[in-house]
Structures are given as structure tokens and as C-alpha cells.
């Protein structure tokens, strides 16, 4: 039985809109220009402050996701942009020709098909940010969409909170894109890098300040200088090639008050590094105590013994080394990171 929603009083209409999921709002906005205007006006008057808009674009498609605070910001797709090439794999009968693109309704949200991938991604981002009156919160892209960093920096005043450079499945060497991302991406909380870089890749700039730095693969490029200049609270690097001498130097730097915001460092070392002895001047003391660490996302893990080291200002840290994994946890006993 149809329900003439546009004939309901304003307060009722607003209540119904408030009960819709972001993907349903976007889908409804394609019903007519008039309804889109109405939805847009609704969000201009009541900015959905608890919603977080993310761009997720890698491989053959781009997508806009929205996460809500009530759902722990778990992202759900609201709109996607694909290349027209992908239509060949589908039946065209449900496709609707729009002005400059084709549209279909795919499972729970609209999918738009474009000749030009970049144009498609820009269009869906413009569409969703305009509809919801939101800035982009997170940018998760591969090297092909590296242009999106400058594009986002130029189109909004607020800084990204989360930036992630994903692995480009079409390229074996993302040095240029990685360098561009390290130099130009600005985020206040998370930097995540997963791009493939060559063995010769180096970076001589600064990174941070932000809360988290995660280099989830190909972390061989991170030098001692890089590590000392990174300004983060939590640093995790996979594939690090730092030597025992580098680790001692870093500890010396930390002891002297360097990297003051750092609370947790984890290096998964690629080399067969065996950290048996520390330089004497570091004055480390062996311990067999167990420390529980807890990340903001609720993930918990234990640090079983290791060494204690004291900073010049009296702050303590625990060092743990096992199976090629070096950890430094600042402050001891049941730490909440």
C-alpha cells in the first residue's frame, strides 16, 4: 500500500528521514530532484554530526561509505562508482541512463557506471558530501587515486582523520605514489600504508603529528632518522630492516626525551636480528612481569617480561623482543594505549 510521504507534515517527514539509514537516504535521493532537494535541506538544517563519511577507492571501483557513532562507526556503503567496462559482466536491463552515467541499484545502494573512473569517483563524493552536508573523514585509496589527496585537501577546510594508502594490485612499484602520499596526505588520527615500494625507496621528510602510524607491509624503507622524526602515539611497522645498532640508537634518543608522544612502538623486523644485549649506557634492567596492553579499539595483548628502561624525566618503558618483533611500551602495568 503506497504512503504519500510528501503529503505528511514537516515534523513527520523529518522524523521518517531521521529513521532512514544513510544508504536508504542516498537511494531515495535518486527518486526525483525535488526529493533530493528536500533531503539536502533536511541535512543542512540538522548536520548528521555522528556520521563519518569515507572514500574507499582501490582496484576497479570507488565507493562512499558512511559509519555512524551508534554503530561504532562501522562503515556501510552508500554509493559506488564503477567503470562501464564492468557492465559487460552484467545484464544491462536494469540499468538506467542518466546524464553522463548509467545507474543501477545493486543490493543495498546505487551503483553508477562511468567511462572515466576519476570523474566517477569525484561525482559520487560530491554527491554524498553535498547531500549530507559532510566533509570527508577518511580517505582509503590505492596509488591510482593518489590525485585524490590534493583534491580533498583543496575541497575541504577540515583535515582528514584517517588516511590509508592501499596496495595497488596493478603495479609492482608504487615509489612515486608512496612519496606523494607521505608528503601530502594530512590526517589527524590514522596513517596506514600498505603500498608496495622498491628496495631503494627512501623518504626524507617528516610525518605526523597524528595518533597512529601503521606501515602494514614493505616497511624496509623506514630508517632510524625516519623513526626518530615520526610524531605519533602508536607506531607499528611490518618489514622493518632496522639493525640492533639502530634500535640501541633509538632507545638512546627516547631516553634523552626524543619522540615524547610515543606510547607504543612495534617493529616486525625482516632481518634475522637477535637483540641479546643493549648498550651499557642505556641502563636497561631485565624484568619478568606481565603487562596488559589495550588499544582504543578494544584489542588487548600481554607483554610477557623483557627489559625496563627509564627516560631522563623518570618515565618508564618496557622493551620486549621475541620472534623478530621488537616492542617498546611506555609506562608499565596495565597500560591503556
Amino acid at each position, binding site marked *: 500500500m503506497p504512503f504519500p510521504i510528501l503529503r505528511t507534515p514537516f515534523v*513527520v517527514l523529518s522524523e521518517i528521514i531521521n529513521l532512514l539509514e544513510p544508504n536508504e537516504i542516498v537511494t531515495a535521493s535518486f527518486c526525483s530532484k525535488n526529493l533530493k532537494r528536500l533531503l539536502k535541506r533536511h541535512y543542512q538544517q540538522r548536520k548528521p554530526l555522528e556520521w563519518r563519511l569515507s572514500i574507499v577507492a582501490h582496484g576497479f571501483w570507488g565507493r562512499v561509505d558512511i559509519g555512524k557513532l551508534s554503530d561504532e562507526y562501522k562503515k556501510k556503503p552508500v554509493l559506488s562508482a564503477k567503470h562501464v567496462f564492468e557492465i559487460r559482466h552484467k545484464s544491462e536491463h536494469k540499468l538506467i541512463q542518466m546524464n553522463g552515467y548509467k545507474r543501477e541499484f545493486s543490493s543495498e545502494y546505487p551503483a553508477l557506471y562511468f567511462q572515466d573512473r576519476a570523474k566517477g569517483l569525484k561525482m559520487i563524493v560530491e554527491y554524498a558530501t553535498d547531500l549530507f552536508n559532510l566533509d570527508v573523514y577518511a580517505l582509503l585509496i590505492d596509488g591510482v587515486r593518489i590525485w585524490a589527496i590534493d583534491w580533498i585537501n583543496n575541497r575541504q577546510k577540515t583535515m582528514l582523520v584517517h588516511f590509508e594508502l592501499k596496495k595497488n594490485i596493478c603495479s609492482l612499484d608504487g615509489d612515486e605514489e608512496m612519496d606523494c602520499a607521505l608528503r601530502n596526505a594530512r590526517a589527524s588520527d590514522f596513517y596506514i600504508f600498505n603500498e608496495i615500494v622498491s628496495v631503494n625507496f627512501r623518504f626524507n621528510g617528516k610525518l605526523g603529528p597524528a595518533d597512529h602510524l601503521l606501515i602494514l607491509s614493505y616497511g624496509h624503507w623506514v630508517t632510524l632518522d625516519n623513526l626518530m622524526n615520526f610524531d605519533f602515539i602508536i607506531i607499528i611497522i611490518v618489514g622493518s630492516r632496522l639493525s640492533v645498532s639502530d634500535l640501541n640508537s633509538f632507545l638512546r634518543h627516547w631516553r634523552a626525551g626524543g619522540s615524547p608522544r610515543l606510547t607504543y612502538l612495534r617493529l616486525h623486523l625482516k632481518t634475522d636480528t637477535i637483540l641479546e644485549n643493549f648498550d651499557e649506557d642505556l641502563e636497561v634492567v631485565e624484568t619478568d612481569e606481565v603487562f596488559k596492553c589495550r588499544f582504543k579499539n578494544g584489542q588487548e595483548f600481554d607483554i610477557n617480561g623483557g627489559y625496563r628502561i627509564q627516560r631522563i624525566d623518570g618515565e618508564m618503558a618496557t622493551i620486549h623482543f621475541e620472534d623478530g618483533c621488537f616492542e617498546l611500551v611506555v609506562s608499565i602495568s596495565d597500560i591503556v594505549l
Partner: protein
Amino acid sequence: MSSTEQGTSSAAPAEPTTAPESAAAPEVPESFYYVHGKDKVVHKVSAGALQHSALIHGMISNLGYTEEQAKANPFPFENIDGDILQMVVDWCNQHKGKPTPPEDTNLPKQKEKLFDLVLAVNYLEIKELLTYCCKQVAMMVKGKSPEEIREIWMIPTDAEDEAAEKEAKKRAGKEAAGETAAAAGDAK
């Protein structure tokens, strides 16, 4: 706890029978009010049930009616169909003095009446019932495409909107011209 009478001149509704809650506490007699919709059928509703409606609650708290006065002056809601008012009264009775659950299984099931029910509930300012009704409306479009939503919510297409706008402009133009001609006639 409601009874329905055909017309305001019908016999007085039966008094509610309630068991005393405890021997110690003296029973406070529940006050009742009377409402009718477009069909003039009078519904007897307790003040407790009517508390759900901010509109009626506001009205009765200022009146200080006795039982006889309330019976002689049923609240007229001429803009609400009788069957819709009956649904509303039933819901208020079912939820009298109870906290409303997040999901309500006592919602009226007739979908074809949902639009009228929403308008009535909004007019009577019954917040919880309005939220439940709006949830039903929102649920209608779950997993639906824009074309399906357009049908379910009766959204005119862009072409239909444009045609309606043209028509409205044309009508407004004619009306303005008519007014000008009438004004000119008056001047003569």
C-alpha cells in the same frame, strides 16, 4: 478501558470496575474523558490513557471537568476518521501507565490506514506512537531501488513535478489576471 457509544445522546458508558490495589492505600477514582471523531461516535477514555496525547493532556489539565461535565462535553476531533480515532484510543489504553517498548507489537496492522493514522497521531501529539508509525514508513523502503521507492512513497517524477509547477504557475497567472480585471471593474 474504553467504551464506545453511538452518538453523544446514547446511554452513559459503564463505569470501570477496578480491583483495589492494596488494602492500605485508599483507591483514587480514575477520571474519564470523552472524545469523538468525524463519525461522532464517542469514546470514553481514562485520563491515564490520554496522557499519551500531549494535545489532549494539555486540554484536560486546564479544564478541571467533573465526570458529568466531561461526559456532556466530549472533545470533538472532526478531522479524524472514527476508525482511526478508535485505533488511537485502543493504543493509548494498551499503553496506559506503561513504559513504551522499543518495538511495539500492538501497532495497528492496517497499512492502508497508516497515512491517516500518522496525521491523527501527529495532530494529537502522541510522540511514541508517531515514532512507531514513522518506523513502519521507513521500513517500507528497506532494500528497495529508487524506482520502487518512488512507487511506495508516491514520489512524482521530475517530469511530473515540472508539469505540476507549470500548471500552478498558469493557474496563478490566471488568478492574478482575474483579480486585476475585477479591480479594474470596481474602479469603474
